[in-house]
Structures are given as C-alpha cells and as structure tokens.
C-alpha cells in the first residue's frame, strides 16, 4: 500500500528509534550511573533504565503539529495517552473534536468521551457540507497563562519548551485550570493536583516521540525539534500555512495546526 502517502517521515513505523539506537540507550544506562547527568540532573534511585543521560535540554525546543485534514477520529491517541500516563477516567490530556457544518455554516460540534472510543454515525442535523476532526491537547504556550498564575511555582516551562506540573509541590488550588483558555488542564481526582499533557516528557527526553504521535495511524500528529534543522517539522512550519488556536489571546501556542477552520477555538 501507499504507506508514504501522508508525506511524513516521522509517522512511519520506527518512531525514529531503530534497533541500534535502542541498544545504544541500553548501553548508556551504565554510563548514566558513572558519569552523572549532563545537565546536572541527579537521577532518582531506581529510575527506569531508559533515561538518556546524554540528553541536553538546552539543545532542543519541541513543537507540535496537527494536520486536521489527516485525522480520522479513531481515538487511538486518546487511548494511548490514558494508558501511557494513567489519566483518570473523566479527564483528558488529549481529546478529539468533530466539527460538522451545514450549508448555513452552523457548526455542530461533539466529542463523546473525548473521542476516546471513536465516533458514532449520529446525525448532525441538516445537511453536512463540511466536516472534520480536530485533535486537541495542551498547547504548551510560550507565553502561557497557566504557569503565570500558579501561586507556588509548581508549574513551569522547561528549557526545551514543555509546560509541566510538579505534583509534589502543587497545592491543588485549581487556578491554572481556570486560567487555561483551551481546557487542557484539570484537577486529577486521584492525586488532587493539577494535571495536564506533558508531551510525554519521559519519552521525549529519552529518544522517543509522545505516545499519541507514535500511535497515530495516519500521521496526523507530529512532534519535532525547532533546534534541529534536519527535523521535517521545520520545513512544514516554514513553508506551509499553519495556524494556532485562539491566537487573539496571545498565548503563543507551540502546537500548530494545518488545515484549521475558523470555527475551531
């Protein structure tokens, strides 16, 4: 079959992780113990074997790109995210919205259970003239309103551009949840702390892509490194028409969309 039809190198099988690099990760584990950490991180004892000590966060800046024209709304990403990150039921680190417009341009939007189990063939009402899926997740804004309002410094942006929550330090006030215009944050009912997409920081900084990117069967989601000139995402951002959600709020989202409709916010 035409497996390169999506025109995206990263969405093929290997996740950029060939067997050789995988083995390399294994051998570097021992090096971690010996050499300590490159960016001065002391790893907690008993850390999972795959922590890559050569990762230097000053040499990466992650950005995300979603091709709404490719998304088939299967929900694989939302399921993978939940399994990868133990997201409690009823909360979503990522979800998929379905937009259907009739001839008058009125939009019917839905996202049953965050689209996690796909979409049913229910009627939108009226004659559907335009329809598409839009995957959503934290935009990891460069001027993020959520870390700004965290009263205790429990939420922060890493040097490689990822917005994280320190659940040991979080007091669970919920201010960041209110401050996020995208509905990306929630209070985790199990930990009672703020929770959100981490762009799978544990994967991203150890040579893997996020679980949602890896699982997507159609390459609708890609994540890439702005600091790496060879990363295909830079070519796409440089040459294609892209958009972000709610640009009027000036949050500088680092999650780009191609093929976004004006009805989406």
């Amino acid at each position, binding site marked *: *079959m035409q*497996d390169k039809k999506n025109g995206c190198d990263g*969405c*093929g*099988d*290997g*996740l950029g*992780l*060939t*067997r050789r690099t995988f083995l390399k990760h294994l051998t570097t584990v021992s090096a971690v113990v010996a050499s300590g*950490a490159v960016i*001065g*991180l*002391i*790893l*907690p004892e008993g*850390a999972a074997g*795959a*922590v890559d000590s050569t*990762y230097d*966060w000053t040499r990466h800046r992650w950005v995300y790109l979603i091709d709404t024209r*490719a998304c*088939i*709304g*299967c929900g*694989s990403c939302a*399921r*993978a995210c939940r*399994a*990868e990150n133990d997201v409690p039921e009823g909360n979503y680190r990522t979800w998929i919205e*379905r*937009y*259907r417009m009739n001839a008058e341009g009125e939009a019917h939007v839905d996202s049953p259970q965050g689209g996690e189990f*796909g*979409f049913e*063939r229910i009627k*939108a009402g009226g004659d559907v003239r335009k*329809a*598409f*899926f839009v995957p959503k997740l934290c935009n990891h804004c460069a001027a993020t309103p959520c870390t700004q309002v965290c009263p205790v*410094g429990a939420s*922060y942006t*890493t040097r490689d551009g990822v917005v*994280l929550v*320190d659940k*040991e*330090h979080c007091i669970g006030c919920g201010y960041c949840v209110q401050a996020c215009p995208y509905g990306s944050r929630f209070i985790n009912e199990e930990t009672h702390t703020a929770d959100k997409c*981490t762009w799978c*920081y*544990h*994967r991203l*900084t*150890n040579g*893997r892509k996020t*679980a949602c990117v*890896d*699982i997507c*069967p*159609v*390459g609708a989601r890609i994540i890439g490194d702005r600091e790496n000139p060879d990363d295909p995402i830079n070519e796409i951002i440089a040459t294609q028409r892209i958009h972000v959600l709610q640009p009027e709020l000036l949050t500088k989202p680092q999650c780009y969309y191609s093929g976004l409709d004006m009805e989406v916010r």
Partner: protein
Amino acid sequence: MRQDSPLWHAKHVVRAFLLLIIAVIALVLLRSLLVPDSWGQFGWYRGDNIAEQRAKEQRHGGNISCLECHDQEYETIAGAGHANVKCEGCHAPVALHAVDGEWVKEMPVRREAELCLNCHQWLDARPRAFPQVRPREHVEEQGGEFGPAVCFDCHDPHAPL
C-alpha cells in the same frame, strides 16, 4: 530610662513590636527550612522534578518492541496495508504485556468488527481518501452476512488486503 522620657510610657509598644519581630524572624527561618533543596536550580521551581518527570515508566514501545517475540506478525504488518497502524493501537501497550524480555501479562486481542470500524466506519468527518465502509452494505456487497466479527472472514487484521 528616665521617667519623664516619652519612651517611658511606650513600654507596651516596644514589647508588642519585639514580639512581632520575633514572630517574623521565626517565620523567615521556618521558610528557609521548608524550601525544597533543588528549588531554583533551573528556575522558580523544584529542579528535581525534571528528573522525576523523565524517569516515569514508558509504556508504549512501538512495533519494534514486539519484534523480538513476534517477528512473524511484525513482518506481516510491515509489508501490508496496515504498515502505519501500530500493534499497540489494536492490542495494548507493551509494558502491560512484556517487560525486559519477559512475558508478564496476557495481551488483549479484540477479534471484533468494532475494532475495525473504529477506524473504517464510514463517517462524514473522515477524510474522503481514507478507506472506509458502510459495514452492512460492504459485507453484503462482498457476499457475506453481517456479524460481530465478520470482518475477519475476509480480512487478516495484520494484512487486510
């Protein structure tokens, strides 16, 4: 202090403010005890959290993680229409099934039409170029009879066509 000095009658004020100062100093000391060790290492947050975040368990391993034990399925998939569809998308994350080359728990197998229809059910919002079917019509067209696991009569999930 002399009795006619104006401060003579301010003894209570001095005591009150002394108490206040002691309380403030105690608070400042307490604060310095409570600040986490790695605070401010990289910014106004707990530096150790970076390492904690990075050390979380990776559950998904990609198709490559199945290769060691299921090379046949791996090859089949890679050479057919589902080359871009990930094993873990139809089954489950590898960490729930095999860890460090050891089988730990059964892998779910969803032998049901629902699995296929999740991706292939005809929907108006799906990109038109994506192969999708109206299940009943499709099966009948192909001379079958619709049932909950009918797709597998004609399609191999690992090499659908």
